[in-house]
Structure formats: C-alpha cells, structure tokens
C-alpha cells in the first residue's frame, strides 16, 4: 500500500485529500498513475506540479514508489 496525498485544488480532482493504492511491487510513477481514474491521472500529470516522497521534494523523472511510501502531489502555491 502506498499513500497518495493531494494538496490544494488536486483534492477536488481526487475527491479526497488522500488515497491508498495497493502496490504489488515497487512501481514507476507512470504505472502508478495508470492505476488511477483517467481524469485524476491527467490532473496529476501537469507540468507545474511538484512531488514530495515521504516529505522530501523529488523529481518525477525516474521516480519509483514502494510499499509504505507517501507521495504528495503539490500544485502551484498561493499564500499570504
């Protein structure tokens, strides 16, 4: 099981703030996204998104998600 976290507007796209995905083995990001609803998968593939794996910013390129990982999808920020 890996936990996906959706920040900001991505929570609306996912319909929840988080989602648990069963993983049989360490899974490349593209394959993980293919397990999801196509509309959500598309929302999570935008070029302006950042990713954090277990609380640390990571690049999408070459990313592999394993059992017990927490992957956060971070859309453009807006504070103040």
């Amino acid at each position, binding site marked *: 099981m890996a936990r996906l976290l959706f920040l900001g*507007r991505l929570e*609306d796209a996912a319909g929840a703030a988080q989602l648990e995905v069963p993983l049989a083995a360490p899974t490349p990001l593209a394959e993980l996204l293919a397990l999801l609803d196509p509309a959500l998968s598309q929302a999570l593939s935008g070029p302006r998104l950042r990713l954090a794996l277990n*609380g*640390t910013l990571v690049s999408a390129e070459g990313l592999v998600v394993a059992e017990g990982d927490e992957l956060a999808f971070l859309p453009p*920020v*807006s*504070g*103040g």
Partner: protein
Amino acid sequence: MAEVRLALDPFDPAALLAAFSAAHAEAGGIVSFLGQVRAGEGVDALELRHFAPLTLPGMEELARTAESRFALASLLVVHRSGVMAPGDPIVLVAAASRHRRDAFAAADFVMDHLKSDAWFWKRERAHGAWRWIEPREQDHADLARWA
C-alpha cells in the same frame, strides 16, 4: 535571529508586534506588514492549507535568506493555516533594522515570497461555494523582481 511561526490558530498581530518592538530596542526602525482576509465580494471564509514536512522549514529558509540579504536586527514571520473569516489576520511580517531602507526591503522580499513561493494553498468560500485561488500574474512578477 529570526522568529518564524506557522500559526494553526488565530494570532494577535498587535501583541506580537509590541513584543517584537520591545525585544529589539536597538533597531532604529521596524517595518511591518499585516495581511488580513478581505471583506466583500460575498466571501465569508478563507482557508489556507499547508504541508507539514515542507511549509515551516521553507518559511525558516526564507527568513535565513532575508537575513543574509538585508542588514537586519531581527525578523518576525507569522503565517496562519486553517479557516479564517473576513478581517482575520493571515500573515504578519516585521523587519527590524538599524536603518529603515533594509527593513522596508526585507518585509517586501519576504511577503513576495510568501505569496507565491511558500508551501501554502488558498481557497475562499463565496455564496456557499469553495474556490481554489492561484497566484496572479502580478504575484509572479513581484517575485521576479528579486531574482
């Protein structure tokens, strides 16, 4: 040494500013900025979300950068997360310096980065519906001034 806080509950900007001023009597000038929830346009709530592993560490890094860039006696940065009502404080930045120019610039610098380069997400509720707010072009242009 900066004081940086992520406030999960309402804060009192006047009390914080009074304490900050008293603690830095050696500073000849203190510039502060208070951001508050704007009333009007049917908005009855504003929510700021954060991501715990990144948000406060990012604010602390921003404060360190401001302190290395400007000649400051001290810096105070407080940013709310959670649901707020019109008139509630969102953010307080105060920069104390021997001379005013660095204090003005540091407060401006920190605010520009908090608006569009800190780990917060903002949505507002108007007429019963929530809407996520993305940074405006102006926010990005403001940030680019410091590059």
